[in-house]
């Protein structure tokens, strides 16, 4: 993983940690609503809003449905930023 990807990964984990109330170190690519108790629909949309505001990107409903794990979120944000 290069530095840019490291930065993005860390940023997403920091935002997810804030929203979900879970230490960033405990979040992996596989972390999802099934494995994180606090990750309900409200938390999911809060996370989406926080990512939109932090990254100056917009997610449509189809995007939001695909963002069902930290790894999927990273892939989506990377795609939106043209990375």
């Amino acid at each position, binding site marked *: 993983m290069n530095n840019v990807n490291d930065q993005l990964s860390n940023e997403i984990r920091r935002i997810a940690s804030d929203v979900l109330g879970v230490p960033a170190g405990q979040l992996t690519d596989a972390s999802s609503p099934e494995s994180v108790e606090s990750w309900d*629909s*409200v938390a*999911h949309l*809060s996370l989406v*809003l926080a990512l939109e505001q932090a990254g100056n990107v917009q997610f449509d*409903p189809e995007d939001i449905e695909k963002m069902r794990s930290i790894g999927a979120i990273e892939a989506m944000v990377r795609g939106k930023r043209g990375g």
Partner: protein
Amino acid sequence: MTFDDIMAALPADATCGPLLRAMYVDKAWLLKPMLEALSLDMLPAYLREVEDIWSVMRAARPQTPEPHRLAEGMKGLAFHSMEFLKRQIEFAKTGEYKASDYDTVYKEVYSNETVMAQYLDGLLLTYVAWPNHYRLLNWYRDAYLAKAKPGECLEIGPGHGWLALWQLRSNPANRFLGLDISPHSVAYSRSVLGAAKIDPSRWSVLERDAQKGIETHPKPFDRVVIAEVIEHLAKPEIIVNAARERSHKDTLFFITTVVNIEAVDHIHLFRSLQEVRDFCTGKCGLAIVDELDLPLKMNLKMEDEAYEVALVCKPA
């Protein structure tokens, strides 16, 4: 309650199985609150409701293949549910509705065919996908339709037409006039009433802005429904008073609105249940006969409580 419980209770001849699967398997993460609100004893009535809505939605668009209709409906419901959550999360931070100007909302929402197609499908499906909307629909039938005298019915903003349909189903003597600002709502309401095979001589749905007055009607109205409209207007008392002036002393009104609940087109912000009551009894000259308060149960920190509220009123 699980999806398997629901499917076990589903009658063999029901057609709504794919819709239930889409709601409670594919969109389980989004619609879990409805699943949690259901109990086994509620299932027969709930499944009749789902079947009814889904049958009419399909019959209203007979040329559209069922899988495509299902995808359209679910797209609308997902859009509506996600948009609501996003806006409510923002509202919890700011305490203000984002939209403040009716003309902008009209341009961006009510006259926009793409937005309205999703909006109306989604809003109709919330009656079986959002716990508070399901309770509200049942209360409409039990506390209002069952108690109001039959006769001339007016609805301002019938939208998806489902309350209009039940108004007409509730008594064969009822005749219905619906006035809606959106041409897309008018078309949707008409398609729903047509698909449900309600005698066309009993109803009429017209594109009209009730804020500019309610057209002359040969008789005063016996029943008036203004549901999910008040919060969309800057001065909602104008339409309530216009309807009251076309009513008589025994006319029963069914009014719904929201307290501290945001949506793409909400403009008029009520900050408490008392503000809603004061609006009805003060500016609108109504007396409250019955009231249903449905607190919004969301994992959100808000300064004031949020509610869906429905009122049965009569002229004071």
